[in-house]
């Protein structure tokens, strides 16, 4: 298909190569491969999504600069799955975006989405279109659970891969942390009614029971409501030794705010949905101080091996990356490795051969070697724990400095 832009590029390339006389050097004549990116880049999840977007864009531009895939230029197609009505990610919009990716011929692979709710809407469409997507942060276990394969991958072949582990580890490992490190005997569990939050809280709850932590109760919050004081007062009255919240920052910020007034002194924890500058800016300090949150990936931004990468990111985007900017960048590296493998074998890249190459690959990335099991899950299962600790020297939205790394959560 010759679009107006590619025609212009073709003309320019031809003109250049005629002028200079070296036809082979004219990169403008490269074929274009589009990498779809679907993230909620506006709305209440924007802060985290922006970093993932930047991570992916950095990967794409570095690949082009280094001419990693000779004969091809990579181009991002950025789609936003947040809508104004939802104020945050919107699964209906995510489905529309998935259709757009599938129907755009040159989209051969994609990065995203941030949220499991969006992923559940996208995977059936991507599966029918045989289009591979790699998520940097959607952790709901159902997506790769073979039990639900008919629902999420009706095409039968694995198209949904992750560069983070799942809530099947994020929840239980955090429960281990509660039992072994925090040594609490009882917990009250809340979730925000979302696909991610409910699944995470379920997984946490199950492991609490296994570890002998008494679950004093479980309640579901309406994320659009504002008043959680009555359920928090109930938690206080039960003398719960700790609180766990499964959900994203939307309801979470209010939980942080209101629990500080009612149950300030017990340990409180949450998953990667709360590893967000929204918590430190929206709830602020001292309310957010001391909350434990997890990430479903190894903590790498402080690793000396990635210092160069962090500097490159910071100078390009004037912002500091977090670990999910890295999992997003790693997703691009996985796609790149597959493209290289395909082109090295003399094949023309297609959705099908890229998917096959990704499924069987082990790719060196910033977080270490990444490989996938047959359902698309990453084989490493590290869950990192952070403690929100106010560092007044840095701005409130600087997650790297307001979330202090505690360590790896104990694996089961």
């Amino acid at each position, binding site marked *: 298909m010759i679009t107006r832009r590619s025609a212009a590029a073709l003309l320019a390339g031809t003109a250049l190569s005629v002028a200079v006389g070296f036809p082979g050097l004219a990169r403008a004549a490269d074929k274009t491969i589009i990498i779809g990116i679907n993230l909620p880049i*506006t*709305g*209440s999840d*924007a*802060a985290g999504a922006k970093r993932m977007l930047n991570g992916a864009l950095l990967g794409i531009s570095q690949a082009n600069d280094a001419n990693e895939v000779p004969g091809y230029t990579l181009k991002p197609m950025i789609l936003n799955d*947040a809508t*104004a*009505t939802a*104020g*945050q990610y919107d699964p209906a919009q995510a489905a529309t975006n998935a259709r757009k990716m599938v129907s755009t011929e040159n989209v051969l692979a994609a990065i995203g989405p941030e949220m499991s709710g969006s992923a559940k809407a996208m995977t059936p469409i991507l599966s029918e279109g045989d289009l591979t997507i790699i998520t940097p942060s959607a952790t709901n276990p159902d997506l790769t659970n073979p039990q639900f394969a008919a629902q999420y991958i009706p095409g039968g072949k694995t198209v949904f891969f992750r560069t983070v582990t799942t809530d099947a580890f994020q929840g239980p490992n955090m429960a281990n942390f509660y039992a072994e490190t925090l040594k609490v005997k009882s917990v009250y569990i809340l979730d925000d*009614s979302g696909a991610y939050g409910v699944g995470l809280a379920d997984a946490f709850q199950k492991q609490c029971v296994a570890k002998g932590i008494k679950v004093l109760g479980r*309640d*579901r*919050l*309406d994320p*659009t*409501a*504002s*008043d*959680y*004081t*009555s*359920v928090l*007062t*109930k938690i*206080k*009255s039960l003398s719960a030794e700790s609180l766990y919240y499964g959900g994203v*920052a*939307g309801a979470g*910020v*209010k939980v942080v*705010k*209101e629990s500080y*007034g009612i149950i300030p002194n017990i340990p409180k924890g949450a998953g990667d949905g709360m590893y967000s500058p*929204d918590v430190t*800016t*929206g*709830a*602020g*300090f*001292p*309310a957010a101080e001391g909350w434990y949150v997890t990430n479903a990936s190894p903590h790498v931004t402080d690793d000396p091996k990635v210092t160069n990468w962090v500097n490159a990111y910071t100078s390009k985007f004037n912002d500091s990356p977090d670990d999910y900017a890295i999992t997003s960048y790693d997703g691009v590296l996985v796609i790149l490795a597959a493209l290289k493998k395909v082109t090295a074998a003399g094949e023309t890249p297609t959705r099908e051969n890229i998917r096959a190459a990704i499924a069987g690959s082990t790719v060196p990335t910033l977080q270490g070697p990444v490989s996938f099991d047959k359902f698309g899950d990453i084989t490493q299962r590290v869950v990192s724990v952070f403690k929100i600790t106010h560092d007044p020297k840095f701005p409130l939205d600087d997650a790297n400095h307001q979330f202090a790394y505690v360590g790896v959560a104990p694996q089961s």
Partner: protein
Amino acid sequence: MTPLDLFLQQLINGLSLGSMYALLALGFTIVYGIMELINFSHFNVFMIGSFVAMGVLHAFGIDGQGVFMYGLPLIGTLLVTLVVTMLACGALGIGIERLTLRPLRGVQGPMAMITTIGISYVLSNAVMLTMGANTKNFPNPIPPWTIHIGTAQITVFQLIIWAMSVILMGGLYVFVQRSKLGKAMRATAQDPDAALMMGVEVNRVISTAFFLGSALAGAAGFIFGLYYNFTNFGIGFSAGLRAFTAAVLGGIGNIPGAMLGGILIGLIEAMAGQYVGAKWADVIIFSLLVLVLICRPAGLLGRLAPTKS
């Protein structure tokens, strides 16, 4: 906590929540009483009130938690913020009526109501696009003093919230019952044509109703911010829907009814969170609404204004 203390604590929580719903419900009731119009833009006038109040507090240099004020400066700051917020929201209410509802006056059917739904979305999206969708930290300059009753506790700002609500609601009631404009409002509510013939300026009465309702919504927005310490573009919908329910529950068009409905809904929400589970709160509130509408279609206290012909 003993069961009694716990009940007391939830009563305190519920009353605080309820007084906010009541303030918000009054706006629905005043406008409905006069125009028989359910004004959905009211939801987001409330939300904008919380943003205006936040802006005023920021202008006073209070822009974070842990910045407290005492004595006269505290009272002064709160009063100025309250007055500015109420005036700004009142003006917004008048503007909404003038620009979008007055042209539809006399048009039969649900046009005006649908217009207010549209305005509601315009307001919330305008705030989201200009201020961002993130939850904002709402500063609270009131020191965290608490009064203990057994193991239950009342914070000083809960007391301030109750006082503000009672004063505002009482003021409104006196205004509507005693003042000339209040009488004109009641006259218009009873029979707009007769009121017009008696020399009541109906346009002025309607503008007043919008001003008062929106100003109270602004006050509720300010109280919301102080109480919860946050605001975002989406707070209007769920609070507004509950307040609307409160107005219908008490008898829409009926000022004491709106107050009663608001307090009731606040209490139900708090008690449901304690004794049934927070996830059931909405089910209980809206089931009760349906039940009241079936058994007492005019609401608990009924409509004061006679039915228009």
